[in-house]
């Protein structure tokens, strides 16, 4: 009881703190100078129609590199956590339902297609490497759930993951060498605004990100899934 009332007091305090913010929050009518710069200069400098993408991949590319790293970390740690189990690849004892099997057969290629589309067009349309990667991963996961015999090899995923990560970093370094700084996308020509092959390195980076995210997410899920099987034995 005392604990609960104490908690309520604390939450009230927290609410009070946040209420200060809410109270001061008046919305905005206009872009602030930074955002305005993105909106006005972004298209020229970066050449991406999707301003968010220009921010994500270029202006704040270091953050994005960090995000990718976080996913890499997560995958690695999950891998470490379930290391012992993942070594013993046991068969799925339940099998797969007919509905899933049929739907999977149709959906998996489509999902892969959609995912690839999303990250390739990240600089033009809503979406990008992360979104596309997530869709890609869902395809792999679906495949793994559906076709128990044809599990995606961890090793392949890992290679894809590492390869795309290293390439991302290398592209970033190329920015230092060829353009204005680390992760500058202007290492390639900006191309025509609004076209697929435009915005310098963004499509490439986003593709790499998409691959990386896709492989990492699938890796996480697959590792956790495989641990489910061997879990009870230890």
């Amino acid at each position: 009881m005392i604990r609960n009332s104490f908690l309520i007091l604390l939450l009230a305090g927290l609410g009070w703190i946040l209420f200060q913010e809410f109270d001061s929050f008046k919305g905005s009518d206009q872009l602030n100078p930074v955002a305005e710069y993105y909106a006005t200069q972004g298209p020229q400098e970066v050449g991406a129609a999707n301003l968010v993408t220009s921010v994500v991949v270029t202006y704040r590319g270091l953050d994005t590199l960090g995000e990718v790293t976080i996913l890499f970390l997560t995958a690695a740690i999950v891998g470490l956590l379930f290391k012992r189990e993942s070594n013993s690849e046991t068969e799925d004892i339940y099998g797969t339902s007919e509905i899933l099997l049929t739907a999977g057969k149709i959906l998996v290629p489509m999902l892969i297609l959609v995912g690839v589309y999303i990250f390739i067009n990240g600089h033009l349309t809503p979406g990008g490497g992360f979104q596309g990667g997530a869709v890609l991963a869902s395809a792999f996961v679906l495949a793994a759930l559906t076709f128990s015999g044809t599990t995606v090899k961890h090793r392949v995923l890992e290679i894809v993951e590492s390869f795309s990560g290293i390439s991302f970093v290398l592209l970033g370094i190329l920015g230092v060498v060829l353009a204005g700084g680390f992760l500058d996308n202007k290492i390639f020509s900006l191309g025509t605004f609004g076209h697929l092959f435009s915005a310098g390195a963004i499509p490439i980076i986003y593709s790499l990100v998409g691959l990386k995210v896709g492989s990492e997410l699938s890796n996480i899920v697959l590792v956790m899934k495989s641990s489910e099987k061997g879990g009870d034995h230890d």
Partner: protein
Amino acid sequence: MVSPISSIAVLLGSAFLVGLFKKTSYSFAQMLSLLAIAFPLFVSAQWLIHFIGTSDGAVMLYTAGAKPPFSVSLQIGMAEAFLTLAVNLLGLLSIIYLMKPFKELGVKALALLLILVMGLNVIILSRDIFNIFVFLEIASIALVGLILLGKRKHTYSAGFKYLIAVAIISSFLLVGIAFVYYFGSTLNIDDFVAQNLIVTKGLSTALFLLFIAVLLELKPFPANGWALDLYEAAHPGVGALISGGTATASLYVLYKILPMGADYWSDVLIWVGLISFLGSNILGISQKNANRLLGYSSIGQIGLLVAVIGFSDQLGSHFEAIFFSLFISHFLAKVGLFWLSGWVGKTELTAWSILRTKPWLLLVFGIFLFTLIGFPPFPSFFGKWQLIVDLASEHGFNWIVIILAGSLFEGIYLFRWLGYAIKGEKSTENKPLLDWQTALPIGLFALLIIGAGYVSNQWMPNGQSINLIPVFFILALFVLDFLPAWIKNTISIAGLVVYGYLLYPELSDDTLRLVFAVIFLGGGILTLIAGYSVKGKRAGFFPFALMMFAGLIGLVEADNLLQFFFAWELMTLGSYVLIIRGKRSMLHAYNYMLFSLGGAYLIFMGMAMATAGQSGISLEILRTTAFPGWTYALMAIGFLTKTAALGFHIWLPGAHAEAESDVSPMVSGILLKGGVFGLIVLFLAMGGEQAQANPLVYVLGWLGAITALIGNLIAVFQEDAKKLLAYSSIGNLGYVLFALAFMSNIGWMTAITYSLNHFLFKTLLFLAIGGVVLRVKTHNMHEMGGLIKQMPLSFIAVLIGIITLAGIPPLSGYAGKWLFYNAVIAQGWYFQGAIVFFAGTIAFLYCFKLIYAVFLGQPKDKFRQVKEAPVWYIIPQIILIIGIMVFSARPDLILKPVGELLSGSAYFPTDPLNWESVTASTNLGYWSGYKIMLVIGVMFMVLLGWLLLMSRKAQKIKQFDIVYAGETPFTPGTTHFSHNMFAPLYRAIGFLTLPMITQSWNRVNSTVHDFADSARKIYSGNGQSYLVQILAYVVIVYLILF
């Protein structure tokens, strides 16, 4: 110059690459990781050298080809270069140190470490708050992975608690960043600061969330249970990464964002930091688990660093130096300790006695601990010194009190720990193997500490005034420690002799200092001569002995407060190690250290108060201090702990009694004079005779008198010969204190005579008794007896010693008594004087007991074959006896110049002692040591001749040929009356000797421990309560602030 960005890229790229390797090519992955981490190390070193060499400003690094605030920007300056260097070095050594656990866990773990180091680099370099947030998350997550190293118990739950706490904290951080962006329209720190926004309610709350989240990342007390659990659960190598790595980065984040906040944030940091420092150190007191204890200590130290960041305005141009020295101390020492902990393998503090199997590790352990506490010559000493002096100039005395109190509490547990390591019970289990992967990082860090100490010393204002020659000499002795003892002994003695020779011209005018220099150096040489009797290597003895003497002589040499305090702490450090070398000295050395530490902090506090509002730190400023009452009182109490005045004496008996035979005279006859000299310096500052009106002096006078009485009285009831001498020292120092407190010419003459006498006879007695103890292997007087036949020379030494001690004419002790009476009557302190006299008569009792119970009475069977004390003990005794004789016959040789100095100075011009050749006179009477000696000597010889003539035929008989009511004695043991010898006296006034002071200290001790023990129950182990604590911390700080 290589851009730091490339080091980030290299780290990240190799992390991705390393993840690819298979188990079979592990060693290749390992090599790659090492190279990958060596590269940024090289880069940061290069930049650091560049900045040191050129004094250029910081360099901004842009990403994405855009300028901030639009893109993420990094900055490398001196600080960043240094901090990344530290982090990268830590990373590199961690890979080496953790080689085996890494191998167990595989390549992925290597990648985690690389990413962690990369993250830390970016956190340090980045100027964008969101970017910092992202990389803080990276670092945290990488750590969550790394705690899987080493396969320890409970890592999962600890990791989960850590994760959830970090998640909550980062939620606050993110909300804060979001609103900062809303109100400030930028994520770039420099841009935000440049805008100089008007602080509104919303913005200040947003900044609050930002700051509190960064603070929470630094695990402030008490919202840090999750971090403690992690420290405990993680492999020590990972603990080192947390404590040294992430904390470093987070601290720097705090420093970077500090200009964003309003001015009050400095105060918040100060309070948060200091509360952390104090609270964490108090709660650490009862901790038994080494890793967790290191966690407590880390949190405390980081708290101090946070506070220092908060103080950055006050510290001004000294900030960098102070932060550097405190940071590097924490970084190197704490990481080193974690690594050591990994080698020890066991978590209980008592298991650390295993370190004794590798003496150099023990030394390194000592270096780490002394660095943490802030002993010279380690960097934190200089940092703390300057920090506190600077705070004092801002009149921040509350802060100083908290800092010093926290340091004291830290000392409580760290020195207990050191005690376990040096003297704890040796565990029977197999000692762990020391491979190069462990030895290299630990050794390297220990060496770096010494280097950092030198840098701090040179960097700190006034630091260069410290004479480092003795320190280098001591270091050289450490290096030469493999040599046999007699070579090192010769080197040490030669060092003291040469130093004395070099010092002499400097002091020849100042007789007062010269007397003490003679006591310190001469005493050092004499007691070291006794050291020749020790065979073998005597590892680690000589450096510390020399350290003590260097400290003592440094006191004499000191011109400014820093030199004085440096010397004081050096002396304490050396003497502590000397004391703990004794067989059963663990507890006593611990007590000694705690009292010394407390005393040193009081002195420090007093000095700091003296510097407030004054320029410079020369000793002269004590005279003009703005807070005379506090300054003098604090410093006086500090010095009293070293002279073991009543109330602060409880460390002394054990420490002196249990020390090695030739160490006891060092720490008794010589070391105690350090405190006396401190008091002299203090009293000189108080300004001569006008200070008589100072109530402090009056109090000290009474204290001295009562100390003399109680000290001597307790000594009477001792059965342990060395303890008896130790209590006697307490009493004797009471005389000195009393005489000093007269604040008159003759009073000081008394004090100096007493000091010199005490040095002569107590060194003599301890050497003689030490020689006996060496032979008979017991301290208990009632077990000895009749040793005069075996040890006639020791007997003569003790006889001369006690005659001097008791103040019996014609020896020099009487000179002190005579001066004392004159001073008492001139001063009018009759009652105190009577008490001191009473103490003197009581001294006579233990003098008799000492000589009777040891040398006279019934010889014991088992000591029939003992030999005379080693010749190396006898030689210094003979020199001391000659000294006593010379001083007795010609006291004018020393007292006359000292008297001239005192009366010639501005301090005590009135009522000096008049000298007429060898005769001293006051307006009360006169005295001539020479004539008294002559008369008594001639008379004694005549009477001796007479008796010899009368009883020349006497038959020599044996021990049982005594009248025994017609019976024969049973055994020598039951016939030797010496146990509980003064039982009637005890029945009469023994109540004065009840250990009330010891008991009250014990009560203080147990109260503090109980408090710490119950207070640390807030770390209940429940992850959810930790979250509640975090939440409460946020809310409470917010409510306090707004």
